[in-house]
């Protein structure tokens, strides 16, 4: 078996991987893109709804169209589709397998991880009850309906008000199915309000906040679920239990970055984001190992995933060329009111143009400030009219913060109400 040589190998041909491969190639690197599906685009081809591309292309595209833009840009780049990466080794060696490619060994100077994320399942949230057919994640249903032309059921209950769940509520209604309701454990919507309006309100699909599914019924095929209101501690209140007949339960209860390969390579992980710790160039703590997109943190917009992918691709090309990983870093830590922050490290001297992205811990429905502090002193701020956990926000590092970091110390990010 003769190994394939390349400068940059990109694992995953979704929005992050495509942008990384395009950027790496533009930076002069001999790039190889590996994708497990027959087609490129990752999850995009099944996301047939609009809402993509406003930030990058200035027009509203559907997922397949957005994917097509990137696939055209990536035309000419060496790729292996229908090929699954099964293992990686430091240095970097990638083993992959596919029906056409056989078993391959790829040697690359640097590596971009762009495997995206997976959906949380019934097992992960441990719902009690029987184990019939008719329980699946919203994304699986989306693929069945939009790519394969299969209806997973006729009468649906959706648990979780994530965006995919709400989008599927509309999609299934439009395909003639009945969506009994969307049940959300939290007291507030998990996804975007636009999806609430256009997917649920438009189609008269009820949203039940502060509710969860406590039991699954049906021996062979799902016959119904027990739904229950929850108290402030999110514990189900048995007195509110109600049986809802349905033949399918869709779960839209969160996404988990897919990082088995990342951990295998020894990259430091961020317990909150579920992804690797990265610096402002999307480099993990392993020199030459880059990561971007939903493998790093779950994003709201594909456009942002592509932007992060482009940074990773460009920097991976630079590393493959000159092997410089950096010498010193400052940490970026989430402070008061901030749940998670990316990047978690800044390569020194810090680049003032760096965008710091973050998610707040709980909704702030009033004017507030994002603050960057170094050694207790505020070095940058941005005013926001509101901040919600479901919407990633960002601010630029700026010259003052970059200067402050030259003199040592770490960067803290906090949100304070005005």
């Amino acid at each position, binding site marked *: 078996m003769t190994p394939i040589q390349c400068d940059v190998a990109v694992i995953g041909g979704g929005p992050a991987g495509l942008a990384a491969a395009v950027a790496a190639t533009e930076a002069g690197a001999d790039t190889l893109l590996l994708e497990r599906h027959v087609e490129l685009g990752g999850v995009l081809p099944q996301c047939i709804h609009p809402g993509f591309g406003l930030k990058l292309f200035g027009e509203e595209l559907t997922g397949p169209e957005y994917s097509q833009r990137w696939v055209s840009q990536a035309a000419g780049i060496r790729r292996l589709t229908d090929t699954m990466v099964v293992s990686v080794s430091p240095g970097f060696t990638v083993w992959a397998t596919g029906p056409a490619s056989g*078993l391959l060994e790829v040697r690359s100077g640097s590596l971009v991880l762009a495997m995206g994320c997976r959906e949380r399942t019934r097992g992960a949230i441990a719902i*009690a009850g029987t184990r*019939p057919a008719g329980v699946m994640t919203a994304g699986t249903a989306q693929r069945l309906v939009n790519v394969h*032309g*299969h209806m997973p059921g006729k009468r649906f209950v959706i648990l979780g008000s994530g965006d995919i769940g709400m989008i599927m509520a509309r999609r299934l209604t439009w395909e003639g199915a009945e969506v009994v309701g969307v049940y959300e454990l939290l007291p507030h919507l998990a996804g975007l309000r636009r999806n609430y309006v256009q997917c649920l309100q438009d189609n008269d699909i009820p949203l039940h906040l502060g509710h969860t599914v406590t039991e699954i019924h049906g021996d062979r095929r799902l016959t119904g679920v027990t739904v229950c209101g929850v108290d402030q501690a999110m514990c189900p209140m048995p007195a509110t239990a109600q049986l809802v007949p349905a033949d399918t339960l869709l779960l839209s209860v969160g996404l988990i970055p897919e990082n088995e390969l990342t951990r295998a390579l020894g990259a430091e992980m961020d317990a909150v984001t579920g992804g690797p710790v990265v610096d402002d160039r999307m480099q993990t703590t392993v020199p030459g190992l880059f990561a971007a997109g939903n493998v790093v943190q779950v994003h709201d917009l594909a456009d942002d995933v592509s932007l992060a992918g482009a940074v990773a691709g460009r920097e991976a090309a630079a590393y493959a060329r000159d092997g410089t990983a950096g010498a010193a870093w400052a940490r970026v830590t989430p402070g008061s009111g901030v749940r998670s922050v990316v990047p978690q490290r800044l390569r020194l001297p810090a680049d003032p143009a760096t965008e710091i992205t973050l998610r707040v811990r709980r909704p702030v429905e009033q004017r507030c400030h994002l603050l960057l502090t170094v050694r207790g002193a505020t070095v940058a701020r941005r005013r926001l009219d509101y901040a919600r956990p479901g919407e990633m926000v960002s601010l630029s590092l700026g010259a003052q913060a970059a200067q402050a970091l030259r003199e040592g110390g770490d960067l803290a990010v906090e949100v304070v109400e005005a």
Partner: protein
Amino acid sequence: MEEYDVIIVGAGVVGALCARELSRYRLRVLLVEKAADVCSGASKANSGIVHATTSPRPGSLKARYCAQGGRLMPAVCRELSVPFERVGSLTVAMSHREMRVLRGLLARGTTNGDEGLEIVEAERLRCLEPALSEAAVAALYAPNVGVVNPMLLTIAAAENAVMNGVTLALNTEVTGLLVEGERIVGVATGCGEYRCRYLVNATGAHSDEVMRWAGLDDLRLRPRRGDYFVLDRPDRRPGPSEPGHSREGDPLVRHVIFPIPTPASKGILITPTTEGNLLLGPTSTVSHWREHPPVDGDGLATVEEQVKRLVHSLDLRRCIAVFAGSRPSGARDFLVRLEQRPAGLLNLAGIESPGLTAAPAIAKEAVRLLAEDGLNLSPNEEFDPVRPAPVRVTELSPEERAGLVAEDPAYGRIICRCEEVSEGEIVDAIHSSVPATTLDALKKRLRVGAGRCQGGFDLPLVVEILARELGVSPYEVTKSGSTSVVLAGPTPAAAGSEE
């Protein structure tokens, strides 16, 4: 009407191993199972432990068959290419008062013939199992305790039986017994009647019902249900699998960890499976479910609380699945008996824990009892005890794997990413001697959809492969047979003008 020497009702671990034992002889044997797959009852949902004999009362059938079965198990697993690991167990005392119980278990196990039992304390205990709670005072160490995948064992035994001439009838529910005078002469099923000289009752949770059909009223089973968590396996190590380099990561817990038993059960335990997952459970509560009990939320809460007392660092966020099992509890001992009135009926009934461990011994005993009664056992010259291991791409060296993919590209297409299962392996399972025709059947054999994404990625692909290989529409593919269809039909767009 078809006539057999022996009909075995129930293709759980006892029925399947019994069929395999009988296939050593020139006999016409029928193995009947009401479900769409073998191993669909209690054999499917248990901890998969090959037990020591520290629990059963000396002199009981449980003690005898558990000891014998435990000794037979490694060879059976080797012949059937089923993973068996002698991981050892620790029964943990959390106080000095509980030490007395450990000494009692030690004495009982020694009487029953266990070897190597010892009570370990302090340093030695920490060294054996570093993850154990600080509060653990001492433990009974049973080095011979093993783990086996009970589903693979049952499937492999049934496959080997079929290879050696046994007929398997799936989706065939026995609805009554055929009686002539004082003798059972066959069974009525949903698919017609079958006659036999001997009927073996291996119906697990239903074994007392079948006995009552025959007018025998000395067994009353009260099913007990148990809830389990399955935790994700550790991450795979970098690099390909090579001889001497396993890609599997180190588990958090290496031994089976038991608490101090109660009179009713062995308690809620932590079991490292042969696949690298940790199994937490089971609870043990009386239930009316003879099979497929629903998972109970309170039960799960009890499991979480109990196992965390044993190992603080267990992270329940690593849970990838929950399930519940029913066990045919309530008998004081196993009931292994060739009936005289009515004649022709061999009951293998009330086989609760340690039934999995005992199964190889019970199967041998079944053959002995039938021979004693006059069943003629002339050797089957073509009998082959070896059931070859199905191809698993993850277990091949890079060279072997590359060669296999070159021969058949389907082994290169990975369908289940989490468990790294190829299309070729799925097709093999669908066409094996005990065919996997449902999603659950594939899950039992290959763990397709049993990993951390629980089938999120592979479901659409597996449905297509099953439909193609079985020559049915995707809308006929089921999760577990009968009405458990996975899909409702085409979307209006896909149905097009036919709508």
